[in-house]
């Protein structure tokens, strides 16, 4: 029972981190109709920039400064890269972002090397806040939870209660109408792209010390972010939140419980063969839940696409 509570907290941390990435991506996706393959690369840039800044000025300055830098970089990419490619259609855009992801990884390796960087959480948060039957919850994780929730509330407020948010929402669905009304839609797009990448940057800054700052970090998180926005529904912020939490909890619980598939096979009345190497189901007999944990979100995505192509809270089809 205690372990369930601990896993709920761990899953919440993972889920909220995922949300910070997917919230930006889902807005960008519904706006341009194109997957931004480089989105997780901006997350990586956030971590690396923050590491470099924290060496000189400390973690808190890095948390404030690194995301805007990433956001500006993202906005410039939209203005001078994507917008030019846009007129050639979706496929060139896709290839552009894909190339960008590879480029960013190489650039990061060029400047910081291939080794994992010693990016640490700030000392003030480097203690165990509380413990549930021996399992300590680091203060830093609680800090991550609060930052993510604050960002969600802030985004929701801006999108639903302010004039800027109304224009963005309108531009997502009816760009031509909004343009006719005299708003600068390309500027809106650039802004959304910049804010989206800046959010990925925030995620990078706070995840870097926990999940590790190394050149493979973007690749590791990249694909799961796409799964999240498809499951949540394109363009839906609450959907992105629900899907992120769902996937965070699924992966955490799957890795936590060593359920064996042998038990399932036994329940079906099969008998465990004495010599596994001869059995056709040899892999199934030795498989455990943690081993297949990482693919569960993809199974979820397939199920969602089959039974609810709009996503959990989306309004239009993928």
């Amino acid at each position, binding site marked *: 029972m205690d372990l369930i509570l601990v896993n709920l907290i761990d899953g919440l941390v*993972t889920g909220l981190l995922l949300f910070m990435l997917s919230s930006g991506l889902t807005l960008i996706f519904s706006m341009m109709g194109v997957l931004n393959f480089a989105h997780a690369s901006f997350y990586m840039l956030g971590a690396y920039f923050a590491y470099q800044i924290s060496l000189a000025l400390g973690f808190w300055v890095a948390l404030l400064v690194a995301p805007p830098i990433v956001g500006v970089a993202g906005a410039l990419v939209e203005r001078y890269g994507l917008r030019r490619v846009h007129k050639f259609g979706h496929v060139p855009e896709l290839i552009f972002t894909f190339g960008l992801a590879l480029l960013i990884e190489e650039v990061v390796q060029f400047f910081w090397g291939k080794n*994992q960087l*010693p990016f640490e959480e700030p000392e003030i948060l480097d203690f165990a806040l509380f413990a549930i039957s021996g399992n*300590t919850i680091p203060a830093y994780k609680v800090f991550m939870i609060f930052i993510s929730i604050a960002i969600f509330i802030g985004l929701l407020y801006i999108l639903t209660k302010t004039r800027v948010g109304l224009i963005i929402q309108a531009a997502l669905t009816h760009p031509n109408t909004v343009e006719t009304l005299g708003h600068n839609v390309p500027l809106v797009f650039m802004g959304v792209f910049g804010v989206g990448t800046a959010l990925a940057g925030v995620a990078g800054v706070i995840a870097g010390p926990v999940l590790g700052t190394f050149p*493979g970090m973007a690749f590791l998180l990249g694909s799961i972010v796409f799964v999240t926005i498809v499951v949540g529904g394109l363009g839906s912020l609450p959907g992105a939140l629900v899907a992120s939490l769902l996937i965070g909890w699924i992966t955490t619980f799957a*890795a936590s419980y*060593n359920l064996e598939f042998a038990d399932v096979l036994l329940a079906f009345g099969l008998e465990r063969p004495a010599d596994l190497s001869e059995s056709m189901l040899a892999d199934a007999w030795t498989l455990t839940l943690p081993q297949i944990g990482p693919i569960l979100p993809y199974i979820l995505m397939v199920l969602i696409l089959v039974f609810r192509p709009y996503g959990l809270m989306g309004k239009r089809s993928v």
Partner: protein
Amino acid sequence: MNTVFKTTIGAAAGVAISAGAAFAAAHGPVKIAFIDPLSGPFATTGTNGLAEWNYAADVLVNSQGGVLGGKQIEIVPFDNKISPKESLIQLQVAIDQGIKYIAQGNSSGVANALTDAINKHNKRNPDNRVLFINYSAVDPALTNDKCNYWHFRFDANADIKMDALTDVMKRDEALKKVYLVGQDYSFGKAVAAAAVKNLGAKRPDVEIVGNELHPIGKVKDFTPYARKIMASGADAVITGNWGSDMVGLGKAIIGAGYKGQIYTYYAASNGITKTFGADGKGVINLVAEGAINPPASDRADAYVKGFEAKYPDHDITQARIANAMEMLAKAIDAAGTADDVAAVAAKLEGMEHESIWGGSVYIRPEDHQAIQDVHIQAHTDEGITNALDNSDFGLVKVSTVEMAALDSPTSCKMKRP
């Protein structure tokens, strides 16, 4: 006419090239082909190894007057991108250049491919044989079922390391529960199997409370694994993880409030030592040959300091390279030739060598496995003479198993020339 002419030219050129190669082999430096990843994701390990080989050749042999009364040793790097296929191509290139010695270490998959290819080559070309110096690939099969006369392993293999580790655990009365966790592939499985076998034999009272494999390079957050380890009440964790999987697992376990020991094979250097920093102190241990702290002698200390001065971005991560270099030079001198590798191999077999790192190294004739002291080393910042990763932290020897696994069995039945 034209074709005949071309063929003649081609043949003449061919003769000239091979004559040139033979000439170089007889009069030039003694060349060692270094076939390891120098680009791609494992380039850090490869370039670090190359620096260690170059330094060992310069300091231990060339500046001491070389081999065979004045010949220098030259390390020739070949990039295999850690692919077995690419390695075989590079091996052929090296052989065509008249190189007689092949050094390789990263990935047992590559080593398995090379040892087969070299064995076949030597059978077919008895006049132009080459020798395989395996300085790091630890798959036990290489000195068991897959052994051959031309392969020499200077690292302690995975079974020997586990044997040494469990010897140390045997003495720890307080130890009650052990958790095994590793990457889901051949090496991770080999480590787990060796741990189960050795612990069962030496400490049947110790309970193995967890034995699991996680997807390699795919786990984003190791916290759930850390929770399971905490819940199991383990006193010790054994893992063969390397790279970011090692750092992720270690940091998660420490973050979850674990107070026991984590025994690892590869949790040092290449950024790992620096990343663990103060958090890893008193928790992270590493099983390996050749401890650099405390230095075994002034000579060893000077060797490490000299290396750090010459290559500030690299560390002495594979101490055995110094042993391999010295022993090979000794064998060449004893054989009186660098070209007849069968004679050199005969001198290497059964050789006992006073290691620069203290203790001695013995090449077991029956399987060509180097038998040497294996140390349990702790990650700490106390008593560090030679730190890693340009940090304050490094590894300090805490206990030693002398001549580990000297009488361990081997299934090797090698054919001698």
